[in-house]
């Protein structure tokens, strides 16, 4: 059933392509209905899955027998979490781009193509298929930003596309090498992730191939120092574009790190564990520090994304169940919260005021002019700071707990990152909405348009999701935990102390 998320979304792209060119309304409605349908399917499929700890096959048929590739879609608890996240992010992104008037149908066609690829990555259990979906997302991203973006859009789009492409090519080198080695060991060609997760690649081989594949994916997860595409890309992108970039695309990278790089090369992870943790914490602290001094509202959120994704990578580097649980939950949580923050800044503020410069925003008193935006941002900020009651708290807390047992010093350092996080969020709230700077008289001829219904829906939906998971983390933990706890799971090799030695 979950496979229909992919098919429905791509079908939506097809329908959009055949719509008349100038009917923006029809395009919006088709896109929204498609996204909602896929989201409903994602929820229903996820709830239906009886045992989230196991990999449940959805479809598996031979695709290219010569190289052992199958069309293999399946899902375990981690896929479920991320598929549901994708559904939510897709719907809210469309709600927040209801005002796109320029080439609407093309915008939504690229948008849905991106979403379809993302669903595909989260559901693929064949490495080649996963890679195909992964690269499929690059092109729509590029065009969404280059065509409908703002500040230095062509530069940001090209940078993002090239970073993604270089990253995926690092992955490709590793995959081809691993495919050849695995063929020698298994006696037949295979690209099946579950089969590959049982192959014991030679230690020396893992030593060089793991960092290649891991970094290849981690570039897209915004790992420091390869994060530089993220702020520029987020800022250049149209609102829905940044929401998707931060909401799901960065998760693709982190997911690839976990599902492909780490699962295939467990010894490699152990060898590079410390380095990964260092880079993750560097990202947490650096992202937060840079976010603190930005003048552009969107750059604050862009750098905060780098910081929050650092927690995902730190969780992955812990190699223990608690850390992994936290990392996956943080992917969900950050996807929701970053989407919301970008929605407020990009759609509610920038589309109305046409500025994101704090110096200008300070004089506008937006908290009074568009109170809904102010309140939403405060709530999103609280969630982003990691206050209890919201999803961010549960996730980051678990990551830190997991990390404490392995890297106590680094954990303390990342605690500093959290404190700075509180600082930059408060600064953004204050400067963006509730400044006490002398107000400039509002221009009576151009009053800010009121917050529209779709925006309200989108905001409420995302806040609700974050609150529900913050209050009842069990809802998702019931899917995530069994994946890591079962001794039979594909992650078991990662969690065994000492590994195969």
């Amino acid at each position, binding site marked *: 059933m979950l496979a229909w998320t992919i098919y429905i979304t791509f079908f939506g792209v097809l329908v959009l392509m055949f719509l008349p060119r100038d009917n923006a309304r029809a395009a919006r409605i088709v896109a929204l209905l498609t996204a909602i349908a896929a989201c409903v399917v994602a929820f229903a499929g996820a709830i239906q899955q009886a045992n989230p700890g196991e990999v449940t096959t959805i479809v598996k048929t031979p695709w290219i027998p010569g190289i052992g590739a199958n069309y293999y879609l399946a899902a375990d608890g981690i896929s479920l979490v991320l598929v549901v996240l994708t559904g939510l992010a897709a719907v809210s992104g469309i709600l927040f781009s209801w005002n796109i008037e320029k080439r609407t149908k093309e915008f939504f066609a690229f948008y849905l193509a991106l979403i379809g690829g993302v669903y595909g990555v989260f559901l693929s259990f064949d490495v080649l298929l996963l890679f195909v979906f992964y*690269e*499929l997302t690059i092109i729509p991203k590029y065009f969404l930003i280059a065509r409908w973006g703002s500040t230095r859009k062509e530069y940001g789009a090209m940078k993002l596309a090239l970073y993604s*492409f270089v990253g995926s090519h690092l992955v490709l*080198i590793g995959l*081809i090498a691993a495919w*050849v080695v695995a063929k020698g060991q298994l006696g037949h060609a295979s690209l099946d992730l579950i089969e590959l997760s049982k192959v014991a690649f030679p230690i020396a081989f893992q030593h060089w191939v793991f960092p290649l594949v891991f970094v290849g994916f981690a570039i897209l997860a915004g790992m420091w120092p390869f994060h530089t595409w993220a702020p520029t890309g987020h800022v250049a992108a149209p609102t829905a574009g940044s929401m998707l970039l931060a909401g799901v695309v960065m998760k693709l990278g982190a997911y690839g790190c976990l599902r492909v790089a780490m699962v295939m090369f467990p010894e490699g992870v152990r060898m590079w564990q410390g380095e990964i943790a260092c880079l993750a914490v560097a990202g947490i602290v650096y992202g937060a520090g840079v976010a603190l001094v930005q003048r552009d509202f969107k750059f604050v959120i862009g750098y905060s994304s780098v910081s929050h994704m650092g927690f995902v990578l730190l969780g992955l580097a812990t190699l223990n169940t608690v850390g992994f649980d936290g990392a996956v939950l943080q992917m969900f949580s950050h996807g929701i919260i970053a989407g919301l923050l970008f929605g407020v800044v990009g759609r509610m503020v920038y589309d109305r005021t046409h500025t994101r410069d704090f110096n200008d925003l300070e004089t506008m008193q937006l908290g009074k002019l568009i109170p809904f935006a102010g309140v939403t941002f405060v709530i999103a900020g609280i969630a982003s700071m990691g206050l209890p009651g919201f999803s961010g708290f549960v996730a980051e807390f678990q990551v830190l707990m997991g990390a404490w047992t392995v890297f106590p010093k680094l954990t303390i350092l990342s605690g500093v990152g959290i404190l700075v996080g509180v600082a930059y969020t408060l600064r953004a709230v204050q400067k963006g909405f509730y400044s006490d700077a002398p107000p400039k008289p509002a221009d009576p001829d151009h009053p800010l348009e009121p917050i529209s219904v779709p925006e309200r829906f989108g905001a409420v939906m995302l806040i609700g999701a974050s609150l529900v998971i913050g209050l009842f983390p069990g809802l998702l933990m019931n899917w995530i935990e069994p994946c890591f706890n079962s001794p039979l799971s594909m992650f078991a090799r990662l969690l065994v102390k000492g590994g195969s030695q």
Partner: protein
Amino acid sequence: MNPVNYLQILQFAAPETIVTLTVLVVLGADVTVLRGKSIAARFNVGALLSILGCASAACLAFHRHIEANLFNGLLVVSPSSDFIKVALLALTVFTILISTSGKFTDHVGEYLSLILLGTIGLMFLVSTEDLLMVFISLEFASLALYILTAFNKRNAKSAEAALKYFLFGGMSAAFLLFGFSLLYGISGSTNLREIAAGIAGKGLDPLLLVALVTTVIGFGFKVAAVPFHLWAPDAYEGAPTPSAAFIGSGSKVASFYVLAKIFTLGFAGAAGSAVWHGYLSGWTPVVAIVAALSMVLGNLTAIVQSSVKRLLAYSAIAHAGYMLLGVLSNTPTSASAMMFYVITYALTTVGTFGVVTVVEEATGGDAIKNFAGLSRRAPGLSLCLLIFLLSLGGIPPLAGFIGKFFLFSAAVSAGANLGLLWLVILAIAMSAVSFYYYLRVLKAAYVEDAVENAPAIKVPLLTFLALALLALLVVLFGCAPGLLTQFL
């Protein structure tokens, strides 16, 4: 020696014969019935006749399933070479279809028959295992290509390009002939298998080395590999666009097929090894150097081009580098991976040149800026362009990606201990570079706006059908490569 059975020759060379008859019919029709008609009418009727001829030849080649070897390897027919002929004929048909709207010549009959004659040369080229026949058919095809390059008599660049191409081509023919004559001297035969037997076990004596290097040089010119590539950008740019498409597609397929055959069959005993830390002299290290240079130089130079045709020429050089990777891996898997890559590449190239033809007609140039706003002016056309260029750049799920995966995985499997990985890493790194310049063209088409009030571009129906079919094939072979690999 047995008496020559002409009927037998005719039977085994039936597809070539059909195409030859088609040439006569097309020429005849053009000088008699079609005399005085409009160019468009002459093109359409001529194209129809040519396509009928090619299609029947292809049907015959596809369905005959015979193995034969005439005159000690002069004419070898096998299902695999027959399939390559089918591919060549298909490429010819597509080339003809994208030429039909051309306004670059009044000599329609001659133009079409030259394309067909070139095809005949290429068809003979793929069905021989004899150096003499290789040389004759290669030159036969090349002569047609030289004239096709010069066919736009109103454009000085066309003549310049043809002259350059001709001089380089002539020189390369000399190199080839020199190498071939040495091989004959060493082994006493012009048959590839006998040559292999003749040079086996003798080690790499200087004479063989010279023969080897000159052969590489000769073919290096033909497939436009660095450092023998200098003619390619000018020829691609100056030639009428459909001719350039033919140079970049059909002639590539046949050249690579025969190149691989000569090296893997003829130089079987002198392969050597190009693996990292395991270098052994022979032909593979030589080809490895040429491949590496082509990938690097082709891709890096393509970045700075502003003319799309020149950009495609440099990208063709880069792609020749990837294909050589398949040759030097020297295993059956890598050979079929290479043929998959070459055929899908050729289809994509014809398609891209088809789009360029239309844009050139409509905007008067082939610079990247002439593509600005194409997605608004001709949505279908630019969708085709998107598919072709992304496939060239290696984006899944298009044929170019899966071809690269086949090629690179075959190459890594070939060397012991992942020995050829260094070349594959280079290739993958360079293909990441290539993505940038393909995206530049697509950016013009999809992101930039056309100049004010630019009218919609009217795409000729036949051309559009051909392009749509090509785009469909590129997607299809990418999603279900089994459709093609079963024949290779």
